[in-house]
């Protein structure tokens, strides 16, 4: 069952088009991430869903109700949406309790509900404090409790973790994911961070050129992206030329089995092949593809090695992700071996 349905949404600011036909379905109870680079219109899309702005064309449904369409524009206060902006935006003049109870009727505000919501986000006993007495992560969780308190049809989160420190981000992210799982609330989260989108969401919608380029599970989006450009946006990608023959594709790195989902390509022909850096290993023995290291990027938990294969005439480099192992000097000889299955697109 879908909870939010966006169809053919257009929005321009002056002469500058931002959204040019967005179609998106958000299943009930899911956490969907809208992923896009800065300026791709992610926040605009979220604000249209919330009702702060009005679309130029297209429709938005929340539940079964049309909230934005020709001659229809439901104001935000009647959409039952929980909105969590980038920095939480707690009301600075109200206590944590009053913030959480803001959207409730006066009777409910005095009841146990507020305390219950604070317990749910792990901030029981913080009710009497003021926002400036809380850390960034705590403020963010209060903002979430405030949004959830009104039992919204959908919670909209605008880059909710962007303002947090790196070490805090992972834990708050996990907490938020857990809170949504337990409450079963539908949520839409906007982010430019692909790690965040892939790790938190059930479904990820990639926004590009004002349209949804692909909406899929994190695994599908990463392993089976709709096109090569999207593959490069979602993580590091080696895009190689290949020749397809049956279920096997022949590349610079040898013959690799084709992903089952790419069998639509059945037959033979020229293809572009996606090989993720972690699908390639450095072989100690000499039975892989020989090449030389051109750069070594050390990240602690892993390292990305750029290798130029000896027999590649174009002089392109291949990215390889290794865990552990010694640092390799530039120019060191190595051997590459790729593992399938790999994904591919037909080349025109």
């Amino acid at each position, binding site marked *: 069952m879908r909870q939010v349905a966006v169809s*053919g949404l*257009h929005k321009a600011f002056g002469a500058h088009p931002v959204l040019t036909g967005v179609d998106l379905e958000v299943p009930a109870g899911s956490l969907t991430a809208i992923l896009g680079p800065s300026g791709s219109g992610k926040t605009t899309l979220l604000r249209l869903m919330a009702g702060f702005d009005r679309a130029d064309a297209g429709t938005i449904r929340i539940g079964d109700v049309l909230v934005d369409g020709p001659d229809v524009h439901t104001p935000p*206060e*009647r959409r039952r949406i929980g*909105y969590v902006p980038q920095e939480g*935006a707690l*009301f600075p003049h109200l206590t944590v309790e009053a913030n959480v109870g803001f959207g409730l009727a006066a009777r409910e505000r005095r009841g146990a509900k507020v305390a219950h919501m604070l317990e749910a986000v792990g901030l029981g006993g913080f009710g009497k404090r003021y926002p400036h007495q809380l850390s960034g992560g705590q403020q963010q969780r209060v903002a979430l409790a405030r949004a959830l308190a009104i039992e919204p049809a959908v919670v909209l989160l605008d880059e909710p973790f962007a303002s947090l420190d790196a070490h805090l981000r992972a834990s708050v992210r996990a907490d938020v994911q857990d809170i949504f799982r337990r409450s079963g609330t539908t949520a839409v989260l906007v982010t430019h961070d692909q790690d965040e989108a892939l790790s938190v969401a059930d479904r990820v919608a990639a926004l590009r050129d004002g349209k949804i380029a692909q909406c899929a599970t994190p695994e599908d989006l990463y392993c089976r992206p709709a096109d090569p450009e999207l593959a490069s946006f979602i993580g590091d990608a080696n895009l190689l030329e290949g020749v397809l023959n049956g279920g096997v594709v022949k590349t610079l790195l040898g013959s690799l089995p084709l992903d089952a989902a790419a069998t639509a390509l059945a037959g033979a022909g020229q293809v572009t092949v996606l090989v993720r850096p972690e699908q390639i290993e450095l072989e100690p023995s000499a039975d892989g593809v020989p090449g030389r290291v051109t750069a070594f990027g050390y990240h602690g938990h892993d390292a990305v090695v750029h290798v130029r294969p000896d027999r590649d005439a174009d002089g392109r480099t291949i990215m390889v992700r290794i865990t552990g192992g010694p640092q390799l000097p530039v120019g060191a000889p190595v051997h590459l071996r790729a593992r399938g299955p790999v994904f591919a697109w037909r080349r025109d």
Partner: protein
Amino acid sequence: MAAGTLADRRSEKAVPTRGRARRPVALLTISSLVAAILALPLVFLLIEAHGAGVSDVAHLIFRPLTRSLLWNTVRLTVVVTVACAVIGTAAAWCVERTDLPGRRVWAVLVVVPLAIPDFVVSFGWNSLWAWAHGFLGAFIVMTLAVYPLVYLPVAASLRGADPGQEEVARSLGSGRVRTFVRITLGQAKGAILGGCLLVALVLLAEYGAFEILGYQTFTTEIFSEFNGYSFAASCALSLVLVVLSLLILAGEGMLRGRGQVSRSGPMTQRVNPPQQLGWLRWPALALFAALALLALGVPIGAALYWMADGLPPALSGGANVSLADAGGHTALYGGSAAALATVMAFPVALLAIRHSGRMRRLLERSTYLVLGMPGVVIAFALSYFTERYLAGFGDGTTMLLIACYAIMFFPLALVGVKASLARAPAGLDEVARSLGKRRLAVLVRVTVRLAGPGLVAAFCLVFLSVITELTATLLLIPTGAQTLATQFWSYESNLSYSQAAPFALVMIIVAAVPSYILGRFFNRPAQARG
């Protein structure tokens, strides 16, 4: 959605609406009403000029008197504005950016002269020293009375400007002086110009101080022509004065230019180590002491001197009753006008901060019309018009005086309200609405609550100005009523200095309280960030 429907909706709106979900119709209507009220004095003035006969008015404008008034007004305005710019900027830089000893104390002392009415300063100088009159007297008195108008914005902009820019300039090989001229002055340029604009407008509008010092400008002449019932002449001179003010406003706008980016990166305030003055600190200290002595010591000292001189009459029953009575009227007028101006400013400020569009800019500009109308012209236009065309309705009534104050000081209220609304970001309103609250509820529960302290500041700003207002008050005050300013004025005019002095002191003390609250408000860092 089908492409056809899209085309239909596009053609419906030739101009795509920007930003908001709908046009703020109610807000636009109320703001337009406010703008119409603000435009009344100018409209009245033009109607009156027309009524007086265009050729008569033209004849009155092109006579030798106008030329001599123009010369007097312009040369004093130029000289005082330059002096204020130098003193205000130098003082602000010393207080904000150097290790001048006692900076916190000086920061207060250099602003206090603003709370002393200009006519009290001129009374102080003129009553003590006979040579303090004419051009020289006007130059000294006005410079000392109004330089804080430059100091305040410049100090604020230096405090808010990114000190990192100075460091970068130094790291790129630019010396101290060069850095000061190119970076520091550049950062403060807008504030200096803004301050100079205020100084110039005050000089054009000043009446009391020049009357005491015997210096004739457009304003003093309009005043005496009006009191002598030469309405056509006041009308003609008013037109010239308004044109002069509008020219200054336009000039400031042109000098200011476009594209003022004062800061990049996050808005975190970093404290920079102050510049070492070295041996220069002693001359700097001496100059600050001299400034405080001349700007504060002389007027307060003079008031105390004359009060001590005539102690028995000042304490006699009659004077004391009149002090309480005048204070009561001042508080009543000031409070009502401040409340009215703040209420009028709220919708316009909300529109200016939260919405964009052509109407909004037009409405904001309408406040410039008021800035360009000296108080004497507003008072004259309102009083003469109501007397002549709305026979008897507004003449000498409290309502008319309060309306005049509210129009005169509307720009001040707008500045205060805008600053306060900036503390209530639109994001909070959106969150509140997403939580199911209607617009009006959000306005009451979030916007007004957050803007509250700033609204008090706007109120104080207007209240303070009304206490020390003399020109319009003298023209419009209801028969029989007296304020602190008018009572001081009548004693001063009769040379009863010892009786005038207590009124001067009470005005200074009463004005100091709102000044203090204002200083607290504008010095506080914005903290409504959620």
